[in-house]
């Protein structure tokens, strides 16, 4: 084999191998989806969305309380994650301070890499131990902390993209700095920040580990935010490791609903980004 042929063949072979690698990376997605649609699709029905779980042995029932619980937990998490994340990001992007902004940015990156179950331990010691019971509030705190670094870093990046001329125009008209920041900078970065928030929500919607010992789960409707609350991800976990076929089917149905929520939010975030890129151009 001549050198030229060998180079040609190597080029083709490596190209093929890399393509195969990409295909193998996507293969699990297709498999996971196929099973979710097949197993989940056959066990989902109206009752799933309108009823709470039935006791062991009775078939039927649904996860209505868990779906609502997940939405409540997301709401609580946003209550903590959005102000800290957005204002923190604004600070990091805008501040003239010498060291603090880079320290905050570094801490956000570190926090992003902290396993979610460790954040669950933090919420446990902060909220559950003093209250002496598992609560929706503790779950919200755990998820909120997970949101912060994602929202903070996206906000920072988006704010940096706002042209300085906009800001200068506002200042030249005699607006106070804070008004320029809120009415001009934040307003023009709104789409991008929304994207970051949606990415964060997609992430926390499926979080399970930090909720195990904070929100704890609940087979009934919850009564107040200081009580344990159900979450879709928790319910899926509990049902998946149970020995009952009927619960396994419900777990698949729950997983289908959960992944639909996550993907819809991710898709919306991606479309928003695309609009944003068009705007910026």
């Amino acid at each position, binding site marked *: 084999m001549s050198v030229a042929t060998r180079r*040609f063949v*190597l*080029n083709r072979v*490596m*190209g093929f*191998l*890399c*393509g195969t*690698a990409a295909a193998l*990376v*996507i293969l*699990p997605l297709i*498999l*996971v989806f196929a*099973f*979710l649609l097949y197993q989940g699709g056959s066990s989902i029905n109206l009752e799933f969305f309108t009823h709470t779980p039935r006791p062991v042995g009775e078939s039927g029932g649904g996860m209505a309380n868990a779906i609502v619980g997940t939405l409540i937990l997301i709401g609580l998490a946003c209550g903590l994650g959005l102000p*800290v994340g957005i204002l*923190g990001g*604004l*600070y990091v992007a805008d501040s003239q301070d010498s060291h603090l902004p880079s320290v*905050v940015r570094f*801490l*956000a*990156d570190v*926090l992003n*890499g*902290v*396993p979610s*179950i*460790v954040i*669950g*331990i*933090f919420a446990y*010691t*902060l909220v559950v131990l003093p209250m002496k019971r598992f609560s929706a509030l503790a779950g919200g705190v755990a998820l909120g*902390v997970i949101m*912060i670094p*994602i929202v*903070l870093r996206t906000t920072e990046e988006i704010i940096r993209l706002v042209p300085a001329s906009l800001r200068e125009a506002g200042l030249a008209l005699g607006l*106070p*700095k*804070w*008004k320029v920041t809120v009415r001009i900078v934040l307003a023009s970065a709104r789409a991008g920040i929304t994207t970051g928030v949606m990415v964060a929500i997609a*992430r926390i*919607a499926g*979080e*399970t*580990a930090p909720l*195990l*010992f904070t929100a704890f789960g609940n087979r009934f409707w919850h009564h107040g935010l200081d009580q344990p609350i159900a979450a879709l*991800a928790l319910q*899926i*976990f509990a049902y*998946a490791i149970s020995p009952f076929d009927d619960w*396994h089917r419900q777990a698949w149905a729950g*997983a289908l609903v*959960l*992944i639909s929520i*996550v*993907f819809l939010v991710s898709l919306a975030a991606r479309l928003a980004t695309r609009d944003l890129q068009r705007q910026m151009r």
Partner: protein
Amino acid sequence: MPEADPRRGGGAHAVSLPRTFFVAAGRNVWGDRLFQACLYAMVALFVAIVAGIVGALVVESLPAARHFGLSFVVGQDWDPVKESFGALPFIYGTIVSSLLGMAVAVPLGIGAAIYLAEIAPFPVRSPVGFLIELLAAVPSVVYGLWGIFVLAPFLRQWVQPALGSTLGWLPLFKGPPYGVGMLAAGLILSVMTVPFIATVGREVLLAVPNSQREAALALGSTRWETTWIAVLPYGRSGLIGAVLLGLGRALGETMAVTMVIGNRPEISVSLFAPGYTMASVLANEFTEATSDLYLSALVQIGLLLLVVTVLVNAFARLLVWTVGGAVKGIRE
């Protein structure tokens, strides 16, 4: 020329402004201060949260640290009833399952990154990249569910008997095929980390300047030679960073691993045997911890996990940053 203060009416071309202007200006300063105070309050809260995470874990784990000392990380006995806590089986399980996951994920992830950044036709790149990002968005518990009901039975029925009959003489593939165990955990971890390696790896490769490629192509390189000679060496540290980001995630991954690893605190060389990881033991036993020492021992495992993942992540980010500044899209 010194700035003239318009309020004193000094300066050669002083413009006389209505008095209300200065009143408003005075008020604006307060608005700015208030807004600044809000920002600083949020920053302080954020820093307090990060410090609180470390602080809470250190404080809560002190009793166990005092009681067991170094024997905590080398002890193999985990017996809550006798209050004897050695975390070595969990540390072993975390390391082995993560390394196994990386052994599969790294070649696939880097290969996919090269394909997406260098080889694939342009119309393919964006959709395939999007699919890989979707893969990263699938919640851990869903992977776990799939692992229990699809992957583990598949391993038990097909893969493990085949491996056992051909490579069974290796200690790695000894023992009965349970399906769940270290092998299943490693595979599920590879599925979960590969999107990160591929996505960050692609960003790193795209950050390599085109002049690198053009130089190699101008010398008559084939596309693969260009990639091998000019692109990969330039992006090497960034690619290592991408791999380490994946590793950091694998180490802390909880739900999917808990659901397929078998949850038995034993050290076994065989990949077919059930194991346990640091994150899984937290997930399974935290709510059941009856005594203070038990809880403290679990928190100490959490602290170990925190330290290891933070070190791996910090190092990874440092490496990724060295290639063409901060690479976007490294959000979890």
